[in-house]
């Protein structure tokens, strides 16, 4: 088994559905961060069979993890300090997601004004409904990528 060393401070995102680590890497904009990131694909998992793991060495305030709640609330977020897990972050649905999903309504203003952020707002937390901020079109895709 491949070994990746422990990190001193940052996050370990565990139980990512196998094959989805790179998607999450981009959604969290980790490519734009100047810090150490380890991506482990297809790790053995008793619970899932196979899973992906991402380790990010950075300070706690550098990552906006709310988006993970939108992508897949089954991901385990371990917060690491001094090499130890000090907390597990509960994932909840973010109130809004920006530039993660695109509005597919051809009549929406975002279809013609390319510079606009694609913003979806949680309008019904019970039914987990997100709607486009501009045209109020319901997001019909699967949140679990």
């Amino acid at each position: 088994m491949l070994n990746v060393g422990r990190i001193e401070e940052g996050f370990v995102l565990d139980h990512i559905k196998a094959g989805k680590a790179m998607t999450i890497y981009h959604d969290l904009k980790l490519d734009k961060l100047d810090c150490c990131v380890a991506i482990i694909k297809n790790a053995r998992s008793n619970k899932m069979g196979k899973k992906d793991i991402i380790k990010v060495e950075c300070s706690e305030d550098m990552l906006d993890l709310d988006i993970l709640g939108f992508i897949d609330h089954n991901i385990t977020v371990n917060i690491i300090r001094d090499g130890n897990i000090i907390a597990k972050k509960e994932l909840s649905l973010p109130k809004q997601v920006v530039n993660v999903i695109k509005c597919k309504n051809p009549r929406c203003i975002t279809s013609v004004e390319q510079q606009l952020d694609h913003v979806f707002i949680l309008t019904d937390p019970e039914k987990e409904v997100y709607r486009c901020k501009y045209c109020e079109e319901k997001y019909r895709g699967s949140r679990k990528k």
Partner: protein
Amino acid sequence: MRHIMSPLDFSVEELDRLLDLAGDIEKNPEKYAHACDGKIIATLFYEPSTRTRLSFESAMMHLGGKVLGFSSADSSSAAKGESVADTIRTVSCFADIAAIRHPKEGAPLVASMASSIPVINAGDGGHQHPTQTLTDLMTIRSLKGRLDNITIGLCGDLKFGRTVHSLIEALVRYPNVKFVLISPEELRVPDYIREDVLKASGHEFEEVIRLEDAIPKLDLLYMTRVQKERFFNEEDYVRMKDFYILDREKMTLASEDMLVLHPLPRVNEISTEVDSDPRAVYFKQVQYGRYVREALILTLLEVEVC
């Protein structure tokens, strides 16, 4: 600074105040004739409109203000590719308030986010048309004396008709309003209106196909046009367009005080022979539209008239 994007932006109490003000403007027009002296409204119409644009312009003129703007995207910098945000930033330097109509849904919201003057959504695609809903509410309240305890029939294109959706959303805020939804199977109200608005609010409603069956029990009949531009298939449009025609014979089934409203323009859905019936109030509705827009302009500009 406040904008209006949806009719629900106003609470029921704010709406009452707005409609009271519109009613006062109707009764005492001279009192408001100089309320907006020195003020300018910009009407930014990226697609054609007769009633709405002229109604806004007339409203501002009746308040003593002035008007500038454009009436098609071709005659604005949009034709050169200018964004809505940049256009409103520019217009904010020239006018005190703006009314914007745009074929793309959400364009007025984008404008409001970049604007330094109040923005009124004057219609954005199939999404919202708040001043039409305010007009409908004022018409009902002025002519029926109430917005509660009514049975309203909504007839025609209930699937794509934004005025119908907005009116239902506005009326469920009042007690004991019954809805009779009259449409062909293909043009029934969308699920979200049926489930999230009507069922969620607990209001009584029924869906019927035949107008003749519904008409005797109505206090109000809100007719709508089947909109050609919403169909992708010409055959479907042709099949649907004359599904309902309100004529003198059908009006004999209605009560003596049932009012007929229509957001206009109408095509064939109301026969012109109905126009002379005193219960046909769709042209009065246009008049109320001006009063309510005057009240809206005053409210958003925070102009108080004593």
